[in-house]
C-alpha cells in the first residue's frame, strides 16, 4: 500500500509535538535527567575543590565532571539515535495501521461534516438571501444539487484524478482508484508527520467536501439567470477539467515517509513549493475566476444595472455567513489532517482573521457611506475567511489579524467600485470576494508563513525524517512562488472555464428565456415558489 496524498508542508510546531509526545517522550525525559546528573556532579566537584583549595584536586574534579558530562551527552545522543531509528521509512499498510491516531480520526470526521455544512445550508442561504425572492429556490437548488452531484463524481473519478501519482505527469493523477477501487478500511493516507496515518476513507470523504463546495461557489456569479441543466453539466465538466487537476497540482505529494525516496512524486505547484494550507488557490481563486469568466460569458441579468435588484433577505444571508464561519474551522483546521497544536493555530487564525476583516469592511463602509451595513460586515467576514484559508496553519494570530484588516478594503474596492466601472454583472460578487480575497491570501501566505514573523515556516520533506530549518525561509522567494501559483491558477481555471462555457453555450445554451428570467427561476425552472404567504 503506497502513500496517498499530500498538502503543504506541515510546521515545526506540529512535528515537534508529534515526535516528543508519540515517539520521543522517554528520550526527552532521559535527556533531562542525564543533564541534571551531569550538572549536579560538576557542582559537587566544584564545591569540593573550593573547600580543599587544592589546584590538583580541582583539576581532577573538573576532569571528572567533564567526563561525566561527556558520558551523559553520549548517552543522550545514543538514545536519540535509537528513537530516530524507530521511525519507519516507507511503512507498509500493516505498519500504517499502527500509526493511526483515534484523536486525528475523530477530528477529521467532525471536520468533514462541518465542511458539508458550509455547502448546505450555509453557502446556499448566504447566496439565497442575496437574490430576489423569485429566484431564492433556484439558488438553493443549484447549490444543493451541485454538492450532491460532486459527491458522486468524487467517488467515480475525482479522488483518483486528484490524489493518485501521475508519475512524470505532474498535472493530474491516474484512474487507478476510479470508483474508489482498492480504497477500503485497510488502506491509509499520509498526514504531514512521519509515521502518522489516517484511514484513507477519512481523507477521501474529507476532500470530497471540498470538491462539493468549490463548484457551488461559482453559481453566485451568474445567479438569477442560468439554465439549471446547463449549470449542472458545466459543473461536472469543470470539476474534471479544472478542479481535480488543480487539487492534484497543489495538494498531491508522496507523503512524508515516501518523498525522500521519490522527491519528484508531487503535483506541479507542490513541486514549485507553493503554499496553500486549505485551498486559497484550489478553491477560492479557482472558483472566483471561473465565476468572473462565467458572468461575462453568460451576460448580465435582464435589467441590470437599471432595475434595482436588492437582496430579498439579509437575515438568511447573515445566517448563511455565520454558518460558513463555523464550518470554515473544519475546512481550514481540518486541512492539517491531524489534531495537534498546528490545528489549533489554524483555528485561532481562522477566528481572528475573520473578526478583523468584518471590522475592517464595516469601517470602510462607515467612512465611505456613513452607515455600517450588516451585509458589509458579513461580506467582510467571508473575505477574511477566504484570505486566511491558504495561510490558516502557516501564519500567527497577529499576522492573521493584519491579513484580515488588509483584505477587506481591497475586496471592497473591487465589489463597490471596480465592478460597476467595468460593468460586468457578478451578481453575488464571487470574483470580488473569493478570487480577489483568495489572491490577497495566497500572496500574503508567503509573508505570514515566515518564522521571522511568528509563522510556521516550511518543512523539508525530501529528507527522512522531515527536517525543519527556519533560517532557510525566504519571504521574497516564497512570495514569488505564491504569485506564480496564483497566475497559474488564474490561467488554468480562466481558460478551462471559458472553453467549457463556450461549448455549453453553443450546444445547450447557458440562459433561460428572458420571459422565464423575468418571471423568476423558481417558478419557471423548478415549478415552485419559496414563500407561499
Amino acid at each position: 500500500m503506497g502513500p496517498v496524498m499530500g498538502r503543504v508542508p506541515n510546521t515545526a510546531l506540529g512535528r515537534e509535538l508529534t515526535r516528543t509526545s508519540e515517539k520521543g517522550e522517554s528520550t526527552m525525559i532521559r535527556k533531562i535527567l542525564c543533564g541534571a546528573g551531569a550538572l549536579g556532579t560538576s557542582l559537587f566537584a566544584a564545591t569540593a575543590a573550593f573547600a580543599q583549595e587544592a589546584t590538583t584536586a580541582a583539576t581532577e574534579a573538573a576532569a571528572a565532571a567533564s567526563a561525566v558530562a561527556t558520558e551523559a551527552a553520549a548517552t543522550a545522543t545514543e538514545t536519540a539515535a535509537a528513537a530516530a531509528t524507530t521511525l519507519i521509512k516507507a511503512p507498509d499498510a500493516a505498519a500504517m495501521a499502527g500509526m493511526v491516531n483515534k484523536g486525528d480520526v475523530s477530528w477529521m470526521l467532525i471536520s468533514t461534516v462541518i465542511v458539508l455544512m458550509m455547502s448546505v445550508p450555509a453557502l446556499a442561504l448566504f447566496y439565497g438571501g442575496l437574490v430576489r425572492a423569485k429566484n431564492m429556490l433556484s439558488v438553493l437548488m443549484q447549490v444543493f444539487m451541485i454538492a450532491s452531484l460532486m459527491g458522486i463524481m468524487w467517488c467515480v473519478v475525482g479522488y483518483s484524478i486528484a490524489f493518485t501519482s501521475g508519475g512524470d505527469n505532474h498535472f493530474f493523477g491516474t484512474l487507478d482508484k476510479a470508483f474508489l477501487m482498492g480504497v477500503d478500511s485497510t488502506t491509509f493516507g499520509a498526514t504531514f508527520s512521519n509515521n502518522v496515518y489516517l484511514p484513507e476513507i477519512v481523507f477521501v470523504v474529507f476532500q470530497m467536501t471540498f470538491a462539493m463546495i468549490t463548484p457551488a461557489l461559482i453559481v453566485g456569479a451568474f445567479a438569477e439567470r442560468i439554465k439549471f441543466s446547463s449549470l449542472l453539466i458545466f459543473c461536472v465538466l469543470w470539476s474534471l477539467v479544472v478542479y481535480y487537476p488543480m487539487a492534484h497540482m497543489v495538494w498531491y505529494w508522496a507523503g512524508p515517509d515516501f518523498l525522500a525516496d521519490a522527491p519528484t512524486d508531487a503535483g506541479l505547484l507542490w513541486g514549485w513549493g507553493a503554499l496553500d494550507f486549505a485551498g486559497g488557490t484550489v478553491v477560492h481563486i479557482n472558483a472566483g475566476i471561473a465565476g468572473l469568466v462565467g458572468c461575462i460569458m453568460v451576460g448580465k441579468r435582464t435589467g441590470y444595472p437599471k432595475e434595482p435588484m436588492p437582496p430579498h433577505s439579509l437575515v438568511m444571508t447573515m445566517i448563511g455567513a455565520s454558518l460558513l464561519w463555523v464550518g470554515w474551522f473544519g475546512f481550514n483546521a481540518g486541512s492539517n489532517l491531524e489534531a495537534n497544536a498546528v490545528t489549533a493555530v489554524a483555528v485561532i487564525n481562522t477566528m481572528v482573521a475573520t473578526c478583523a476583516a468584518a471590522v475592517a469592511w464595516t469601517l470602510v463602509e462607515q467612512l465611505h457611506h456613513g452607515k455600517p451595513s450588516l451585509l458589509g460586515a458579513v461580506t467582510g467576514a467571508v473575505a477574511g475567511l477566504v484570505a486566511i484559508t491558504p495561510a490558516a496553519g502557516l501564519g500567527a494570530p497577529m499576522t492573521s489579524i493584519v491579513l484580515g484588516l488588509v483584505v477587506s478594503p481591497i475586496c471592497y474596492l473591487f465589489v463597490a467600485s471596480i465592478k460597476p466601472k467595468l460593468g460586468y454583472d457578478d451578481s453575488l460578487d464571487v470574483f470580488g470576494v473569493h478570487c480577489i480575497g483568495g489572491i490577497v491570501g495566497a500572496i500574503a501566505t508567503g509573508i505570514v508563513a515566515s518564522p521571522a514573523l511568528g509563522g510556521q515556516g516550511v518543512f523539508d520533506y525530501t529528507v527522512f525524517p522531515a527536517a525543519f530549518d527556519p533560517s532557510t525561509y525566504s519571504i521574497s522567494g516564497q512570495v514569488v512562488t505564491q504569485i506564480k501559483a496564483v497566475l497559474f491558477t488564474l490561467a488554468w481555471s480562466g481558460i478551462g472555464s471559458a472553453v467549457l462555457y463556450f461549448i455549453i453555450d453553443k450546444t445547450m445554451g447557458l440562459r433561460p428565456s428572458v420571459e422565464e428570467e423575468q418571471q423568476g427561476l423558481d417558478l419557471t425552472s423548478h415549478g415552485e415558489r419559496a414563500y407561499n404567504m
Partner: protein
Amino acid sequence: MKFIIAIIKPFKLDEVREALGAIGVAGMTVSEVKGFGRQKGQTEIYRGAEYSTNMLPKVKIEVAAPDDLTDQIVETIQQTASTEAIGDGKIFVLDLASAVRIRTGESGDTAL
C-alpha cells in the same frame, strides 16, 4: 353610507384602530401598501450598489360607515395619524351605494 379610505404611516395603525374602536367603529380592512407623494424616498446601499426607492411602505385602512359617523371618523383618523410631518398620508371619502352582510343577507346601515 360613506366609504372611507385612509393611507397612513404604518406605525400609527394601532393608535388609529384604538381611537376608531372608542368612537364605535365596529370593523375595518387593513392592507400594507406602497406609494409615493411629497415625501422623499430612501436610499438603500448593498455592497456599494445604491438603490433609491421612491415607493414607501404605508398602511391603507378601509372603513364603511353610516353617514352620521363619517365626519367623526375622518376627524379621528386625521388627528390620531398625524405627526405633523410630510408623509403622514391622506384620507378619501366616497359615497357608498350599498352594503350586504354575507352571513345574514342584511343590507344597508344594519350590514355595517
